[in-house]
């Protein structure tokens, strides 16, 4: 048992220190411009819909003309257009106007994309990754791509992953030593770190037949795990919507239990706290870890979950009770409960807490310290583009933080970008509350 009052005091202290360590917004004029656009969008639902539909379609437009026609089409559905957008609509009425408007808006979208996507390829991303490392942060690369609907696409994704492992492992070897990022009390931590998605590894995800996707994805994931082992890299298997949860868990457990993978690579999975039955999933994960005894220990990345709208809509359309909490605070509370269970379960698992919520993060750090855990045995993770400020603050506190860095071209990245933008402007997200200037006490209050 912990002294809750004492813990709360500590969370305030840690949260306050992190807040003070956040880079001041004034020093990033460009970023704050982006944020103003986001702000505008989050205040007007119609405008937000128009802008996001526009961003979404950008890579599919054949010309600047086509692009501005789309923009005008979306804006035409907004009832109260702000003055600058009215100008845009007038521009869209003529050919030359459309060319200018198209070029300007394409630039705008590309600019936004660059905030979240670190490069077109792993090689192109090495500069950013090296820069992060020099600044005291580790990274995990995520290869963006179109949805996998064919076997050839799954194969291509697997090849890209394998190449990325190679590129990363090679480049990382030249990085300077940073003990805080390369070890915890359980042993060494790989520098090269790749996150992969099961839905990209197989076109055969069948929610009603998890074994079908599992077997097909296993054919491609197994060689990747081998490769990661041989290169000394970490492979993290992301979690997606509930449709693939069973497939993903079974896949990871089964492969990691295979004899040839018994001593490596370092691998990880994801637990989503917004799921009502996430506690039982954690039971399963821990039971597996206990039974398998595999080393290095499985890393569990705790997140709230990125598919909230999807899960709720899917459930509502089918007449099911949503599998996720419907009150944001319940997700936040459950996130803290699972944080505690995970930290208490060490060294059976390694723990990575992934959130941009100052409270959730401060809680993890505070609980760990209260229980006498070392900072090095808790990893914090953020998304590139959304958690940059927090990353900066965490590195200044000498905490281990890893940035999740998507890599890919515009076409491939658009779905990811739109998802991040939506998340950032969702009304009850921590980041938009923070952007609206909510005070620190409120931001750090227990959920």
């Amino acid at each position, binding site marked *: 048992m912990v002294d809750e009052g004492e813990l709360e005091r500590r969370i305030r202290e840690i949260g306050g220190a992190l807040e003070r360590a956040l880079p001041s917004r004034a020093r990033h004029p460009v970023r704050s411009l982006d944020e103003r656009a986001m702000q505008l969008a989050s205040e007007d639902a119609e405008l937000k819909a128009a802008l996001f539909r526009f961003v979404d*379609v950008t890579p*599919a437009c054949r010309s600047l003309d086509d692009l501005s*026609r789309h923009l005008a089409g979306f804006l*035409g559905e907004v009832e109260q257009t702000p003055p600058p957008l009215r100008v845009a609509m007038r521009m869209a009425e003529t050919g030359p106007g459309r060319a200018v408007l198209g070029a300007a808006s394409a630039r705008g979208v590309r600019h936004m994309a660059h905030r979240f996507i670190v490069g077109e390829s792993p090689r192109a991303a090495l500069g950013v990754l090296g820069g992060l490392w020099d600044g005291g942060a580790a990274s995990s690369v995520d290869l963006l791509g179109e949805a996998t*609907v064919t*076997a*050839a*696409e799954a194969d291509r994704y697997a090849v890209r992953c394998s190449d990325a492992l190679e590129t990363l492992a090679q480049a990382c070897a030249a990085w300077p030593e940073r003990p805080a990022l390369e070890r915890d009390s359980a042993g060494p931590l790989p520098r090269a770190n790749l996150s992969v998605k099961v839905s990209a590894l197989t076109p055969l995800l069948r929610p009603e037949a998890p074994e079908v996707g599992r077997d097909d994805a296993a054919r491609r994931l197994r060689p990747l795990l081998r490769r990661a082992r041989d290169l000394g890299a970490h492979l993290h298997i992301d979690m997606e919507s*509930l449709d693939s949860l069973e497939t993903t868990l079974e896949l990871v457990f089964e492969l990691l239990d295979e004899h040839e993978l018994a001593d490596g690579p370092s691998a990880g999975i994801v637990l989503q706290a917004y799921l009502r039955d996430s506690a039982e999933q954690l039971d399963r994960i821990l039971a597996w870890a206990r039974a398998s005894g595999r080393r290095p220990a499985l890393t569990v990345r705790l997140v709230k979950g990125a598919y909230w709208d999807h899960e709720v809509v899917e459930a509502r359309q*089918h007449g099911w009770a949503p599998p996720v909490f419907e009150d944001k605070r319940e997700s936040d509370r459950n996130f803290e409960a699972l944080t505690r269970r995970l930290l208490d379960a060490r060294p059976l698992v390694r723990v990575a807490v992934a959130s941009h919520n100052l409270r959730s993060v401060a809680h993890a750090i505070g609980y760990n310290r209260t229980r006498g855990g070392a900072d090095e045995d808790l990893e914090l993770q953020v998304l590139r583009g959304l958690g940059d400020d927090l990353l900066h603050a965490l590195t200044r506190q000498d905490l281990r933080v890893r940035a999740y860095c998507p890599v890919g071209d515009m076409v491939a990245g658009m779905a990811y970008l739109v998802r991040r933008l939506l998340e950032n402007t969702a009304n009850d997200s921590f980041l938009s509350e923070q952007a609206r200037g909510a005070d620190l006490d409120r931001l750090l209050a227990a959920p």
Partner: protein
Amino acid sequence: MNPFSNEPVLDLRRGEVRESLTAALTGVERSLPLRVPVLIGDQSGAGEGIESLDPGRPSRVVAVAGTASASDVDAAVTAAGRGHREWGGRSAEERAAVLLRAAGVLRARRAPLAALQVLECAKPWAEADADVCEAIDFLEYYARQAVELAAGRELIQVPGERNTMTYRPLGVVAVISPWNFPLAIPCGMVAAALATGNAVVLKPAEQAPGSALMLAEALREAGVPAEALALLPGYGEAGQALVRHPGVHAIAFTGSGAVGLEIVRTAAETPDEQGHVKRVVAEMGGKNAVIVDSDADLDEAVPAIVRSAFVYAGQKCSAAARILAHEAIADPLLERLAGAVEVLRVGQAGTFGTDVPPVIEREAQERVERYAALAGAEGRVVARQDELPEPGFFCAPTVACDLPEASAVLTEEVFGPLVAVERVGDVEEATDRIEASPFALTGGLFSRNPRTVELVARRSPVGNLYVNRHITGAMVGRQPFGGNRRSGVGAKAGGPDYLLQFVGPHVVTENTMRHGLVVE
């Protein structure tokens, strides 16, 4: 009555749900073959004559059904005439209560009813379960609609005159149903007729008498009088005799265009001894097209097309048969579609994860093969699975392209797992081609431009247009379903106008003036 809501389908992601279905399947398997008698009033005939087979294992007889004779048809219609007087004399609320009870009976038997469809029609689980849910929805929806309808309509009232408008049942409704939605479609037509006070004579497809028996039993158990609902298993002749019978007031039919037009013709003959003109509600075939514009998101379009064209082996009247692809994306679309079709899982309907089950019967298998061969001869086949499971009436899922515009593959309904891709210069050209087709049931559009969506919605002749999603799986109350042109006559099933086809309007105008005074 609480407001209508759709019966939730099962969440097949859950292992325990799948296990309960598998257990139900074993239970139903043990009870085979089912005996499906001719049911007329209290009389129950012999259940022999027709055998319905498991399309995935044709040596297994799922049901043995009687074959209704001409005299059975006559007896059924005569009994229904009596049944109508009793049943139609009840209040709409009383009838609604019976239908809601029937919905409850089906609800209590969801797993075995779905299992029966897996066996009798090779419907994969998700589809079979959805069919049972839709049947329940029709009962729940029409029961409520009928109560609303019974209140009549508001008319203009002036002093000294009272005007009322009410609806009365037509009398005897013949329902002729297909096998592809073996419970939902007969249930929808029967429920609409019963809810409005008609008596029904049901002639189900010879391929699926088992599900029809389940429906009749549920309705009778719930309190539909025996004479208000007869079951006439049989072949086409029984249906023809029924359509021709002068005691029938209306015919509700879902099935092929050829049979539908034959019904329209026969029903129009009005012999002297027949004191009414028959009404026909017919849902017929389609040749449904999906337009994919240059700005479509192929990540979504490809899976949605695959689902629209290949789920239940394409044996839905709403299934996608033609893809009209903008030339700017036609190549990547073809490549991805072909790849997606190559990995489809062709297998038994009872196996979870099966995408493409066998088709209903050998004749269907041969028909699909003929069109596939034609597609290869006249155009190019870009995807086709060569290895098919045995036994069972399996057809290889096929994608074809480069077909001449007049090819039968592009103009005739195949009703199987075959889809053809055509290139178009732009969306206008695509809508022109659709405009030229005599079919107008469902259609699809993938575009992210609101103006394109508007344009296609305005020009498309189809009954149901789906934008940026799959084009099958209409839900009662959410997507009232039915076609235009040669795809159907009548109002949309599961929608607010449907019941009007089963009633006749009656207006009463009463003079309320007496001796110069208004007496109300």
